[in-house]
């Protein structure tokens, strides 16, 4: 979990793509997944997601994300087949309509979440921020907020495990508790985590300010993000995906 959002350095086709193209591709996949109700098309999109992961040279990470999503998907699947009452019964209270809807929901969930996580794995956060500011004209403070939020996730987890270690050292048996009990043990730790996080956030703000945060303009970025042939190819793929979603 700690490194789920972390950038994996590389020089793959996906790495070299313009960050804006990657965001665009992600959005196209998400939109396509909601336009089309065809199970085969959705399964195809899932294959596209996995293929992107493989091309980007992060198959291991792709699989980890996939497995993580599968757990949530399974839960949703069961919930859907038990709740949908329309259609003819197939087995017990499960209907054919229920199975179809559940399948769609689950596939959509996985298809939509995977590229979002993958984008972060193959793009430096600073590139993401800078390209949003330079190409899409997003105001810098918003882009900075986004990148800081993403960057803080592993930091908070690190801090949380630090607090847990400190508690364990004083006799709290986190390792023996499970499920709801463990959750109730973790709840009181939110206060120290919140306090230290707020303090840290404030200091980071100060650190950014004394290094010219307010002076930054759209032209400030050292790296530039021109569109290349690669991005054109990606755009064509996007077009095909969208067309497929509308037709199927």
């Amino acid at each position, binding site marked *: 979990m700690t490194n789920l959002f972390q*950038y994996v350095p590389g020089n793959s086709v996906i790495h070299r793509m313009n960050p804006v193209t990657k965001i665009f591709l992600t959005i196209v996949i998400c939109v396509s997944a909601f336009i089309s109700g065809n199970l085969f098309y959705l399964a195809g999109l899932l294959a596209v997601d996995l293929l992107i992961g493989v091309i980007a040279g992060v198959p291991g990470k792709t699989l980890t994300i996939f497995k993580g999503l599968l757990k949530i998907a399974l839960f949703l699947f069961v919930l859907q087949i038990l709740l949908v009452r329309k259609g003819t019964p197939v087995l017990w209270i499960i209907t054919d309509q229920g199975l179809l809807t559940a399948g769609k929901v689950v596939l959509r969930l996985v298809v939509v979440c995977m590229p979002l996580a993958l984008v972060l794995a193959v793009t*430096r956060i*600073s590139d993401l921020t800078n390209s949003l500011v330079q190409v899409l004209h997003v105001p810098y403070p918003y882009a900075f907020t986004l990148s800081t939020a993403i960057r803080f996730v*592993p930091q908070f987890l690190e801090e949380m495990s630090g607090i847990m270690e400190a508690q364990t050292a004083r006799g709290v048996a986190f390792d023996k508790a499970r499920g709801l009990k463990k959750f109730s043990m973790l709840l009181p730790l939110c206060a120290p985590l919140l306090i230290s996080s707020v303090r*840290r956030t404030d200091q980071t703000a100060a650190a950014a*300010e004394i290094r010219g945060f307010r*002076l930054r303009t759209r032209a400030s*970025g*050292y790296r530039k993000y021109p569109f290349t042939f690669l991005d054109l190819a990606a755009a064509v793929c996007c077009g095909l995906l969208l067309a497929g979603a509308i037709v199927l």
Partner: protein
Amino acid sequence: MIEIQDLSFTYKNEQKPALQEIRLSVPDSGFLGVIGPAGAGKTTLARAVSGMIPHHYTGDYYGSVKVNGLDTVETSLEEISRLVGMVFQDVDSQIVSPVVEDELLYGLENFGIPREEIPARMEEALRKVGIADLRDRMIGSLSGGQRQKVAIASILALKPRILVLDEPTGELDPRSSRQVFALLKELNEEQGITVIIIEQKIMLLCEFARQLAVLNGGRIVRQGETRDVLAHAEELEKLGVNCPRVTTLSRVLSAKTGEEQPVCTSLAEAEEMIRRLIQ
């Protein structure tokens, strides 16, 4: 030149003043060491010099801080930041980027350093701190000491005229700590950069700093040339500030021999003193 006149500061929502009636002046190209027990106001003093007080941290502010003639209250934080670079005590909160290279780029981009100048500045800063090989690494994967060096490099790249460092060697091993001090000395002597350093490693501080200021309870209890301040070793020890062993040695020898020995600040000086006494 930094001139602090009767500065008193109380953080917002706090009762106790963090600084009281501070009077301090650091000449151009000065090298000031600041020392004192925990909660003495050292970090607050650093924040006041770097303009974070009163621009970022607000509260009751009396007196004045002038940096190269500019009053920090009237001057914008950006203007002060162009002159003063600050390295934080909590390195993790200072870092704003996930990759070493980006961390160095951040300030350079913001201050509008010309593109063609940027690569050389980054290389120089990384090389000086001795982390040229870490350039493309994720900061999250670095050790505490390496992160501290990244933070120092990111400030050095901006080439400030005044450097304020809040315990910059807290996470460093003895050898790296000495390297950082040697680098500061080099910048100070060759480029005339003013250095203000808060440090607990008293031995290093006394060896490198030309001036010392001792803080306690928000007040400066003693300041002056390092050697003069160290002459009041007993007073410092009462405050919980340990003196370097060489200084203690010269004090003990003064008492034992019955004649006043010079205050030593480095091993070489102590060696010379002992040789002289043996002869």
